[in-house]
């Protein structure tokens, strides 16, 4: 497409930096801070937008793996049936539709939440379930940290690969 998305993001960013920011009075600190944050967000979006669907699919697929592991730890119940149904409906999900993937991800995450809270209620979390959730959390935290490394806030950002490496 012409003009492409990268070009438009880039020109918005340079406009903010070279045209808008210089004319915002120095004592308008809230406005100045926000222009700078807009530029920083745009730089991150430029690095992320091409991979947004793949990123959401990564989370969704990891959730499906976790759901299969948790189902084994659940007694026969309505919750187990709901998780089963969510997994089955995922098999026909349109994986090219960002919105649909995001909706499916939220539905499954809500069921996973219930499973984590309701499993073995009143007693200790089963070690197998704890290990599965922590393994999922470890992978997801890593993916999120790579995804948002452009913010420069991660104390260990030096250990993070480029975003593209998540999808290699």
């Amino acid at each position: 497409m012409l003009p492409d998305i990268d070009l438009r993001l880039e020109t918005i960013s340079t406009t903010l930096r070279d045209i808008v920011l210089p004319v915002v009075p120095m004592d308008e600190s809230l406005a100045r801070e926000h222009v700078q944050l807009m530029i920083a967000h745009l730089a991150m979006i430029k690095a992320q937008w091409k991979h947004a669907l793949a990123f959401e699919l990564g989370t969704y697929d990891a959730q499906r793996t976790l759901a299969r592991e948790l189902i084994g730890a659940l007694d026969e119940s309505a919750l187990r049936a709901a998780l089963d149904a969510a997994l089955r409906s995922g098999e026909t999900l349109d994986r090219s539709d960002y919105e649909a993937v995001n909706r499916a991800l939220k539905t499954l995450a809500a069921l996973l939440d219930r499973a984590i809270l309701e499993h073995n209620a009143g007693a200790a979390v089963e070690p197998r379930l704890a290990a599965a959730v922590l393994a999922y959390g470890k992978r997801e935290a890593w993916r999120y940290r790579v995804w948002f490394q452009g913010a420069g806030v991660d104390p260990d950002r030096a250990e993070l690969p480029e975003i593209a490496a998540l999808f290699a």
Partner: protein
Amino acid sequence: MNGFHTGDRDDLEPRIAEILARKLRVRQGAGPYLPRTNAQVREQLARLFAARGLRDIAIDGLTRMTGGASKEQFAFALSHAGAEHPEKLVLRMDPTMGVVETCRAREAQILAALAGVLPVPPVRYVDRDGVHLGQPGLVTSFVSGVTKPTTMSRQTVSGVGIDYGALTPVIAAQFVANLARLHAFDWRGAALPDFAAPAPGTRQAALRQVNWWARVWEQDLVEPQPVITFAERWLRENAPVCDAPVLVHGDYRAGNFMFAEPAGEFTAVLDWELAHLGDFHDDLAWSAQKLFGSRVGDDILVSGLMTRAEFLAAYEAASGRRIDPRVFHYYEVLNAWKCAVLDLSTSCHAAAAGLSHQDLVLAWVAITGAVFMDQIVKLIEEAR
């Protein structure tokens, strides 16, 4: 893990429960929040001061202040019939929703109680329920000072990544001494009517924190996160006993104190909105969070000031207390979880609904949720 004790999920401090309930009422049907204009703020302040009995009120030099991710803040000079000279003041006021919902009256009570104990801004006026200001607000005296060296050119958000340069040792010593002094403060003799102390010798100090932030997560949820839910269970199951509750600052770190240049002397400890009565390990673990530190080589310096080992040793020396590594570790998990809750629920919710004067800042703050999720997993794995 020990046996699973949920406790009473509704056991919150009564004022905190009120504030969280108020949040739901206020945001229902609220349109996008527009930053207040100087004219609006001037008019609202005049209404507050008139209600407090001042006459011939003049508000001059009103300037918006930046910093923080939750409150709208303004500096101004107040003149009135009873004052010989204009007084420089600061207004700290709630938007419809910020990164946290807290109570301006509690903040005012803490500042009043600690006057003469720690460097804190003197409280001048409070609008507890926003009757005059439209939203709850607090007016304090203006305190001179900076939160980061003026020579530091790099941008920081909410105090993260400050480098104190040559002032580091001077500031580090005061950072520890003030925390030890705070924890030695006899809160039982202070007027803190909006605070409820946890019962000594019970797990209530920890569980009330879990209940507070679990309710926030539930109220502001945007997208469920299995790790956050799992961590809540872990925190309930592993809550330690607190024998002697202290006054906890709740957000004691770089960016939340001011100092004078060039000497580096503290002029104010700021941002008391998360203060509560609880376990002293709570503050230590909060200050030591990785994200609030600065990386120097292989070390993460606590608030950019000293290594974690140096910080904990200095605190023990200054306070005479012994740190229990197990309790400290618990509060590391609790605080990483609390920050993840704020980042991934409240910040995202407020930004998506346009309920703050700085939604873009909230969207930025939310990014740090990934770092806290990583910490939660690593810390819980260490405990297994």
